């Protein structure tokens, strides 16, 4: 964030100088850009593509925060010590009651235990198959999470083989649309009766069914994968954690639900962030060369004009800022076009990626926040500044006498 502000200030500097000192009017640069419209457009388009890739990488790297949307501060998740994910957890049934013991537990919300399993499913479009996370939840499991909304069909009846599917994966897989079914085991189907949303959280990439039905189908009657506990206040976390983790009857790990979700996708997010960063840096090098070529051409082409300006009394600094401002504006035009492309991406494209912790697929919607656009525009301006620096210095060194002699 601080970096963003520093770069922004540096970018604005030429414009402030333009206003403050007796400088070349910016109209001169604007008209130059319009006159050379083919060159301007080619360069701006190149920068637009770089900005597009940059913003895409930025949004992908943000996956942790988007997917952690469901995590609540007043909810803890309990797993067996050593487990990093619900998938590999195992908690004996009788422990669930004990988790309710400490005074910090909300009487209204209480405790739920769930079973989590990944199931292979074929893509509806025939392009192979992926793992889908199936969650067996008790009857109160849906009410436990107020953000869950049934958006079509109906809620499953407790104790039956009915299930609901998250909106992010509904229709993406064979068997995962209302009225269809998915076999958990021979003659043990889950029948989809509705579709739900969860405010963009990773729950939207899951299938939810009845805890006991799914446990029985999998032959895991006596255990749950994880437990969730609603606390009275978020501040009660430390006390509750202390109470459970030090209890010798079980060896458990207590995490805030929000931390858990963030950690879940941390590996995927790091992978995407590092990859995105490398690509953005390399791409921006290409774009900066593009900007440098264009500005170099502009300087060479207009050396006579520059000489005239110098002869009229404009200082070297005035010429320098003038060309820098032109380069920045040229690049920001690209940034604006790139941002428009980003908007299209965020509206029309959803992106399936793997959660390395559960080997299952999460469908991710690009989330174009104002911060993404701000970063994209500042990034484009920065490319213009760096790319335009050498040509602008060259321009400021044009000797008026030689230039006008032609």
């Amino acid at each position, binding site marked *: 964030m601080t970096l963003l502000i520093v770069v922004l200030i540096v970018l604005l500097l030429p414009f402030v100088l333009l206003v403050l000192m007796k400088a070349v009017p910016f109209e001169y640069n604007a008209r130059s850009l319009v006159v050379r419209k*083919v*060159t301007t457009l*080619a*360069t701006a*388009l*190149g920068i637009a*593509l*770089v900005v*597009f*890739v940059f913003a*895409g990488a930025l949004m992908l790297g943000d996956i942790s925060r988007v997917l952690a949307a469901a995590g609540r501060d007043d909810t803890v998740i309990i797993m*067996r*010590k*050593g*487990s*990093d*994910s619900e*998938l*590999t957890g*195992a908690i004996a049934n009788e422990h669930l009651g004990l988790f309710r013991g400490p005074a910090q537990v909300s009487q209204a919300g209480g405790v739920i235990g769930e079973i989590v*399993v*990944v*199931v*292979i499913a074929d893509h509806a479009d025939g*392009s*192979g*198959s*992926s*793992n889908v996370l199936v969650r067996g939840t008790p009857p109160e499991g849906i009410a436990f999470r107020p953000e869950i909304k049934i958006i079509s069909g109906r809620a499953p009846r407790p104790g039956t083989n009915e299930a609901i599917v998250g909106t992010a994966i509904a229709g993406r897989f064979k068997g995962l649309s209302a009225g269809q079914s998915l*076999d*958990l*085991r*021979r003659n043990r189907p889950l029948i989809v009766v509705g579709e739900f949303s969860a405010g963009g959280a990773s729950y939207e990439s899951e299938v939810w069914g009845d805890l006991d039905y799914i446990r029985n189908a999998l032959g*895991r009657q006596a*255990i749950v994968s994880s437990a969730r506990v609603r606390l009275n206040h978020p501040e009660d976390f430390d006390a509750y954690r202390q109470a459970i983790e030090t209890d010798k009857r079980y*060896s458990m790990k207590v995490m805030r639900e929000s931390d858990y979700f963030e950690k879940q996708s941390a*590996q995927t997010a790091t992978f*995407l962030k590092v*990859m995105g960063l490398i*690509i953005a840096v*390399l*791409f921006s*090098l*290409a*774009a900066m*060369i*593009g900007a*440098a*070529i*264009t500005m*170099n*051409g502009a300087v060479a082409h207009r050396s006579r004009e520059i000489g005239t300006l110098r002869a009229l009394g404009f200082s070297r600094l005035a010429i320098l800022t003038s060309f820098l401002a032109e380069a920045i504006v040229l690049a920001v035009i690209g940034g604006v076009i790139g941002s428009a492309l980003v908007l299209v991406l965020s509206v029309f494209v959803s*992106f*399936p*990626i*793997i*959660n390395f912790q559960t*080997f*299952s*697929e999460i469908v991710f919607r690009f989330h174009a926040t104002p911060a993404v656009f701000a970063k994209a525009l500042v990034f484009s301006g920065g490319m213009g500044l760096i790319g335009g620096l050498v040509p602008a210095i060259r321009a400021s060194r044009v000797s008026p006498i030689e230039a006008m002699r032609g």
Partner: protein
Amino acid sequence: MNVTTYPSRNLFRRRGRTILTIIAVMLAVLIFCAIRTFIVAFNAQADDAAADRIATRHKVSITMQLPKHYIDDLREVPGVKAATWANWFAAKDPKERIPFFAGFAVDHNSWFDVEDDMQVSPEMLAAWKQTANGAILGDSLAKTFNLQVGSDVVITSDIYPGEWQFKVVGIYTPLRKTVDRNIFLFRWDFLNNDPRTVYSKEHIGWMVSRITDSIHSADISKRIDQKFDLQDDQTMTVSERAFALGFVGGLAAVLKALNVVSLVILLIVTLILANTVSMSVRERTHEYGVLRAIGFPPGQVRNFILGESLLIALAGGVAGVGLVELVINHALGPMMEANMSGVFQHFFTPRWVLAEALAAAAALGLVAGGLPARFASRLKITDALRRVD
């Protein structure tokens, strides 16, 4: 003067611009090859999987296990020459020296008969049979953990609680480039006899079979699945390639996006090159008028410009390919293989990617030169001569 002298001389008229453009193309070729290499390396293990090995897993979920007796039934299926099994241990290094490595509990009597591209000495195998908590690990993992034969090592698991003590009885070396050198193997019976295995006693994760002939692998796979079709736990038998892809499968979209990104960089550099060529053409409009006036046909003028564009693109392409060979195949690749062999067993830009990059450079040279060339060849001589800038 012929078709090549004029374009090649032209390259030196705006030396700075030509060099910058060549660098841009070079950079694009480098990025293009790096991304392609990444994709190839990610799929390498699957692409290189032995054709005569098939894997049998639970039909519904990789987290569900199969009853132990399935292995005996499997071995009776005609066409199966040898079979072994393994359990996923979700191994973790308590000291966190390596973010991820595969830990398998395997049948010590049959594992290396089937996975014959992992090489161990007969002495190591004999020692393994003697040592209940014996472990054999990949040479790269042994290096990371600084372990020799005879060392003790403690591993934890995401599935099974507590610490697990092993004695290293062997280190395997790969017989093929794409064999994972970071696998930690220990005896399945050791896992099964431990009281902590309460939920998976007498169960196995997946089975691998060597088959008599790889042409009939689909038939043999079908026969295996039919054998278990009426059981509670049905199976899914696929080639080892598909089995490996199952793990990479979730990244398919990322790889696809990368593929698109590698084309975007070509588009960007096409724009840069087109800009360079059109700037030059604009500056030399007058000159083209003169060329036309002294009798050069429009087609010739067009070829001059296309040739110039192509020369810049190819110069950048060749420089880029050289850079790829140097940076990826001689510096970055060996480094990745040494440090990330769990993910990339073989990080190398294959010849066909280099050829693809050169072809792409040539194509973008022609595309970028196309519009300016058309413009110049269609100029009226009088208009062109009138232009002075």
